[in-house]
């Protein structure tokens, strides 16, 4: 329990982060920025897990463990995504999503 800060404040922050991430994923045009938006989403999830654990279930560690694994897997995901972005860059000399449009709906 953190003195003076109620759980709602953390949850508001994490929810705002989540939706900033979603908006960034949809609106941003640069592939790296899209990746940053995804990191925002995953980190909002981490805040949720850790805060729920700390405030509501302080006698156990499941939420903390989940957050640690999410961090690790997010790193793996980001590394693969960056490798693929470099692959795109080598072909198109550009990482703007407007150029990644050979395939359309």
């Amino acid at each position: 329990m953190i003195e003076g800060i109620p759980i709602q404040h953390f949850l508001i922050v994490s929810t705002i982060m989540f939706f900033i991430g979603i908006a960034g994923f949809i609106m941003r045009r640069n592939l790296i920025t899209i990746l940053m938006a995804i990191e925002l989403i995953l980190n909002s999830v981490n805040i949720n897990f850790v805060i729920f654990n700390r405030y509501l279930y302080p006698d156990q560690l499941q939420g903390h463990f989940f957050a640690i694994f999410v961090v690790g897997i997010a790193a793996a995901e980001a590394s693969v995504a960056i490798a693929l972005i470099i692959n795109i860059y080598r072909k198109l000399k550009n990482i703007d999503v407007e150029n990644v449009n050979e395939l359309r709906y």
Partner: protein
Amino acid sequence: MLSYSPSLGGGRGEALKFGDMNLSQFLMMRHELLLTAAALIILIAEIATADSAKRKLIPFTIALFAMVTVAGFFPVPEGTLFGGSYQSNPLTALMKNVLNIGVLIIFLQAEGWLKRPENSDRISEYFLLTVSTLIGMNFMISSGDFLMFYIGLETATIPIAGLAAFDRIRSRSAEAGIKLILSSALSSGVLLFGLSLIYGVTGSIYFTDIAQTITSNSMVALGFIFFVSGMGFKISLVPFHFWTADVYEGAPINVTSYLSVISKGAASFIFTIILFTVFKTLTEMWKPVIYTLAVFTMTVANLFALRQQNMKRFLAFSSIAQAGFLLLGILGNNDLGMSAVVYFVLIYIFTNLGAFGVVEAISNASGVETIDGYNGMYKTNPKLSLLMTLALFSLAGIPPVAGFFGKFFLFTAAAGSGYYILVLIAVLNATVSLYYYLRVVRAMFIEKSDNPVPTFKSSAYMRTALIICVAGIFAVGFASVIFDTIREISQNFLY
């Protein structure tokens, strides 16, 4: 037996106790252990073969994987491992075997593509990535808590992005890879947000604990919506299907068939298990959601499939529509629904891999991938045309072939729970789907073309794969023992 059973607040200390756990218990994970061993053997074989002999890795790996598949059919001990994180029972073993059969067929079909000069130095990479995704799927199916489920899901997804970007010379392939990894990362983020809310309400990540303590309130509903959206991306349900057609078209055909059959099958298995076990007390909450998704998925995918010209995109939308039919089985919410889902995926593996096999053989031989390009194919390649017709009839659900029985049990499961209007919508959609499946048949048999696909003979591997598919399409439909076995296993699992 393992003495530890997961309980609220007991995650610390007890789970780390390995003293009363003997090594034979690890045999519960036989599928995963065998696949891990296979992955390591592939790595060693890659080092041990000379550059000029890399092609020999193809028959070697196929033989290795065939052994793994056969070994999977021996009975697996029942129980849980790692403090309830991993659970093994006949149903999960059955699902893993179904996936193994599909991957074996895909490996056989990959031979022509892997033998191309630009791929010849990366044969083992393909096999290694595929096997590691399969390990992830197996852990996902066997998961007993949401952490194991999430790790399995990511292990199953991340390497596929590498596979989708496998063709170095086609920039479309790179594009498919980046689209797949970004959309799957987004979907896991959404899914995790839902899981974090559910954790906040119930205080546990274990399936059994959540099922006991979960009650219907607005936060659980919100978490559940996020969870379904995330899973909807993975199974490509409308309205979360936008990545599907692009990735399916851009990826190499072999990877497309892997994505559309194995990935989707594994995700729908665990989705069904989670809905039937974790959210078992909240059926009134999730049934309307699944109902709506089923209606939208079937209808929208069918309408989009009508106007496709590229065979891969066409099969992509057809596979989205099939996922919509699958949801009918989930709505059944009983052992019949569960067994209908497993049975349908088994048939779908044979059927769709048959169709993709023909598309791949033709693309390898002549590069043709459009429906118009198939005009007059019956004259030049009668056997392949007949096989394609059979597979498409099975996808459409025309009586003598297996696809009919798959759909029949799904509809029965839904009708058994009183969803008569939904079954009516599904039947109408099946009729619409018949139109576009027959479009391909018409192109092959009736349309005339000045330069049809030239006559060619596919390799022995591809022929074996296609023969297995044809045998599967007939055998799974006619041998009632298969459905009875699946039914019996599901009954024991759920009740």
